[in-house]
């Protein structure tokens, strides 16, 4: 079954996420990134940041929460999803202590060779609606009965 085309334009309730020191450290270590700005406040201050900052792709953690509610709404199981592309546009890096809200919008649906291609925008904002990052993704959703694998 193709995904309901009337879902285009749907905007999901903002999802909260708090950026914590230990999660930033864990993420930096997981990608093997030893840059001290991810763990050491003094190093971050040398770049004029008040606190430790997160690696650029860390923002995918709050963005994934937006994906989760969209997929639940559209009845899409995780196993059918292929990540096609990803774009991040930053106003500033994520910083420890940020209380973020991610708003997810389904911008478009296209059908290609029996698959649905979803264009999804996630706007990540901090306190007082300050823009932090916009994440745009294309997800390919394989059909439910997948007999050819």
């Amino acid at each position, binding site marked *: 079954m193709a995904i309901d085309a009337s879902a285009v334009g749907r905007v999901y309730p903002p999802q909260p996420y708090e950026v914590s020191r230990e*999660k930033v450290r*864990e*993420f930096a*270590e*997981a*990608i*093997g*990134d030893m*840059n001290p*700005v*991810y763990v050491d406040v003094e190093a971050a201050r040398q*770049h004029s*940041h008040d606190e430790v*900052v*997160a*690696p*650029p*792709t860390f923002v*995918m*953690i709050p963005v*994934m929460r937006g994906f989760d509610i969209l997929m639940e709404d559209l009845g899409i199981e*995780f*196993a059918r999803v*292929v*990540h*096609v*592309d*990803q*774009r*991040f*546009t*930053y106003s*500033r*890096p994520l910083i420890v202590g940020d209380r973020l809200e991610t708003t997810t919008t389904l911008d478009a649906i296209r059908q290609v060779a029996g698959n649905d291609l979803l264009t999804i925008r996630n706007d990540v904002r901090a306190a007082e609606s300050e823009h932090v990052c916009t994440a745009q993704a294309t997800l390919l959703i394989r059909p439910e009965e*997948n007999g050819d*694998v």
Partner: protein
Amino acid sequence: MSDLAVGQVVADQEYLITRENLVRYAGASGDFNPIHWNDRVAKSVGLPGVLAHGMLTMALAGRLLTDWVGDPAAVVEYSVRFSRPVVVPDDDHGVAVHVAATVTDVRPDGLVAVELAVKVDEQKVLTQARALARPPQR
């Protein structure tokens, strides 16, 4: 003013991805899709084996960027297309991902556009991998 020129390779590095890296990335990112850690599941959905998270490959290419610019805040835009899966063998060595960044534009506003070549065995695993950044001050 920047002394960078279009066509200049500003950074070039090889990264290894092992199964251990996938487990760590799964935990850190919260992406527990079993195709990134379970051979049985990966094969059952027609994949050649356990794959690296696309976002991990994107993060490694992002490391090259932030190592070059120094301050992660200098990265203004970063985008990729996941064009080819990265199979991670169940051995001690893992798979080598080679990343190189080449300047494609030096803008009047001081921002520099770079194209990232991200390859495994000379084949691109990310395409349209591009970033816009404030270059490091020399």
